[in-house]
């Protein structure tokens, strides 16, 4: 995937007027999350990490975002969303059951643990889950497609896109208080926003981003 905002690092604004103390505290804490489980046992942790790697395949040569640990903390705190499809159990139970069921499917299909599968096979299993083609006693009436949409995709992607690394990737401005934005019109960028690499002018974008 091309680097669309070369050299852009939202953290370089940490000590500017774009960040208030509250934002600094929140992001610092998020960056301090340790990549190990508090909620899941070792086995489910390995499955979860393998799933996270497929839902968000992170580019090599970049600090890895501990997505699985972020999902794990949401469950450790049992921090809920405020609604639950009646066909799903509460989130902790949904995750436990779903991960066990996916493991069972991997064992049944290939005789190995999910995290040992080739990525192609992992993707195939996840796609089957997404389409509701996985079932069995392990699921206990929990629809696999619903689990995929409401828990797997929802929780993993919410975790990734709460991390500054993902903001760099998509050119999002990140925290913005007290300073917001001035230039509102098409193709106008405030000096504290990510510069996009235009074909043939990548160096200019990098220069702008690194000297923000």
């Amino acid at each position, binding site marked *: 995937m091309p680097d669309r905002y070369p050299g852009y690092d939202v953290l370089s604004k940490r000590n500017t*007027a774009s960040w208030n103390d509250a934002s600094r505290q929140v992001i610092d804490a998020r960056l301090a999350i340790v990549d190990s489980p508090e909620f899941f046992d070792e086995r489910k942790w390995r499955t979860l990490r393998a799933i996270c790697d497929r839902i968000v395949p992170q580019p090599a040569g970049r600090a890895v975002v501990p997505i699985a640990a972020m999902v794990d903390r949401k469950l450790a705190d049992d921090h809920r969303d405020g609604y639950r499809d009646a066909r799903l159990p509460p989130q902790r139970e949904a995750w436990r059951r779903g991960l066990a069921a996916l493991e069972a499917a991997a064992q049944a299909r290939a005789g190995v643990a999910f995290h040992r599968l080739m990525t192609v096979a992992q993707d195939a299993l996840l796609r089957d889950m997404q389409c509701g083609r996985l079932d069995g006693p392990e699921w206990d009436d929990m629809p696999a497609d619903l689990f995929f949409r409401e828990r797997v995709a929802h929780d993993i992607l919410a975790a990734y896109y709460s991390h500054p690394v993902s903001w760099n990737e998509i050119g999002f401005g990140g925290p913005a*208080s*007290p*300073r*917001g*934005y*001035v*230039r*509102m*019109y*098409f*193709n*106008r*960028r405030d*000096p*504290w926003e990510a510069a996009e690499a235009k074909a043939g002018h990548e160096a200019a974008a990098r220069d702008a981003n690194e*000297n*923000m």
Partner: protein
Amino acid sequence: MRTNDGLIAATLGALAVVAGAAAITRKSAFGSAVGRRHQPTVIAARRLNRASGLIAASTLLDSGIEHYRGAFHNRAMIAPLVVSALTLAVSAHGTRDARPVAHRLRDSVYAGAALTGLIGTGFHLYNIGKRPGRFSWKNYSWQNLFYASPILAPSAVALAGLLGYYSERLRESRSTGAPRVFGLPAGRALAALTAAGLVATAGEAGLLHFRGAYHDPFMYVPVTVPPIAAALLAETAASRPRKPRRLARWWLRLTTLIGFVGAGFHIFGVHREMGGWRNWRQNVLNGPPIPAPSSFSGLALAGLAALGLIEEHPHA
């Protein structure tokens, strides 16, 4: 523009402008050297240089801020900065020049400024018309009048140029009787021009203060005091005064003052935006425009010059 470069450039520019403005408004330039020995036309011309310089200082800062906000997306957006800076410089020169002759460089800079202002107005009109894409008369909406290129702003540059150009003509006027410029009585014509400038500038302040919903009662000052000054000037231009126009004089002095006080209000306005001066990079752009009110001071000074001419020569 990189942060530091921009910051340094802005600081140097501001310092230059303040120094220039200080130079033209300095009393000593007029003090003892200005006396009965000098022709009234030259005195008026130098006062006009001062007025022109003050307006140029205001437009230099204002267009600098506003065009920076517009990210100088069109190279021509640098033009008003260059022209205003030159106008400021030649005006400073003019205030010290007591010779009763026009100066070729000053003359051409002033003419250039007047022309730039007119072209700029055209640019701004066109720019608004094609937002957000196709040109349409519907685009002259409140939204675009508030937030797109300000229609009246370039005319401040034109005004600075025009007043300066007028000052050169005034120096040239050789008539022993009432001085005339472009075949018109010099004082009256200048009073009329200044009155028009005051009304237009008050119109712009009115528009932008309407955008700010007149949230502070002091925001009514620039839409009341300068128009009254304009009316007094117009009345002076239309009549043949026999005694000193004391009310007009004091009202113009008041208008001069509110220009500077207004800038002070705007500085406070930037402070009371979110993040205050710590967030200056946003608030100087999104808060009230600090240099804008001093245009009133410049125009009021021009009005005082006109008043001086008229009082000196009842037929001027």
